[in-house]
């Protein structure tokens, strides 16, 4: 596999990771509030 394919893949992973973190945290906060 080409190094740039891996880098692009890692960037996707990081972007979706950050999105996932904020969404999960927000849903946790919302649940706590009932």
């Amino acid at each position: 596999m080409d190094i740039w394919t891996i880098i692009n893949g890692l960037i996707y992973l990081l972007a979706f990771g950050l999105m996932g973190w904020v969404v999960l945290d927000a849903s946790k906060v919302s649940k706590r509030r009932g």
Partner: protein
Amino acid sequence: MSEHQSASLVKTLRPFHVWALGVGIVLVGEYMGWNFTAAKGGILGSLLAMLVAGTMYVMISLCASELGSATKLAGGPYDWARLFIGPGAAAIVGLAVYMEYIALEAADAIVVAVIAQSIFPELQVFPVTLLVIALLTFINYRGVVAALTLNFVLTMIAFIAIVAFFFATASGTVDIHPEYLFQGALPNGMIGLFAALQFGPWFYLGIEGAAMCAEECKHPSRAVPLGQQAGMITLLIGAAMTLYLCSVLIPADLLGVSVYPLFEAAQNSKISIFIAALGLGTFLTCIASANGCVCDSSRSWFALSRDKYVSSWFSAVHPRYNTPYRAVIFTMPVAIGFAFSGFLDQVITFSIISGLLCYVLIPFSLIRFRRLFPETTSKVRPFVGPLQPYIAYFAIAISIIILSTLFWGYKYNLIFAFVFYGIAYFYFSHRHSSSTAENNWAEIGWPLPKGSENTGIEKEVIGVGND
């Protein structure tokens, strides 16, 4: 009281954060975009556009400082329109501010990705754009202080790069071409001068957003006017330096079509340190602008939600980070949608029209504010701008003139924007009753406005008479 109700926006920001928010959003316009004035009206057209738009923005920022330091609310222009004009105007301003900043965020994220790709051609634009939007959403979600401190650092580096390049050029370190000033002075005659005005706002577009962090300032009555006026002075200096640098280093015909004019000017200087500094400045200023846009668009949506113009679900504040977290998250899908809609140029034009519409309504809010709360009730006005309300009237006139120049080239965008905001105006005016009647002035620590006091006195007199 539930956690939802007790959490509120944290008051931690200082004047330099206000400066960073305002200048951070705008400085990108000095690195790119303003130079289309040169394509329309040459160097003289750029100069006129810079001066006319600069005059308008100084006046608008004076209005915004007075309103922002008085109201201390997160919605900024939206809240001023709601309090002093009415629900229809408030909806227009709230939506216009939201559209203005979210479209700019999408555009900035794409430019960052394109710059990254021009350095590393194998990088893809899509994942980098996603990463920029996700990262800035994450930072803004975690707290406004971190987000605006980051903006301060990025903006400072980008501004210092312009200043250093200017002084190096002025001191003779860089070879300049004064003949470019005369060759491209006025290529399209007087009509070109007038047409150039439509791109003048690029030098300063979005500075009014600095007042939108008022609710999160430690001392809003000091921080907002100080931060915003310092920001405006920074931008005026930056605009003058940028225009000088670009017009003596790039021929006017090439300047009008350049994508990154300051970077191109640095390339023409052939001094590697300035090429690197201005390249870095272009990159950082895009990130700073997108970051400020996340902050401002989320506050605008939060304020619209708090007053039930949109679902009140978005008005929740995070109990730990004290940020309007749902409104911040909501900027993410909308910005991604705009970025990959394929209509980004149309969206940006719409955002400029939205901004200009705000520039008509902000001074109008000030005129109404001064009528409702004249000088004698100075308790509500910690900052009083000079020569008001005359400069508010003048700002409205200049905004309308610049808005009318968009008829050349952007006729359909202009018509669409007027239809969109016209519908919004009538819909929200119908849905919400008169805001003046709804406003509880005592709740924000203000006395009754001028008209209401009289009405109250009259009622009392009538009551006494009846007894």
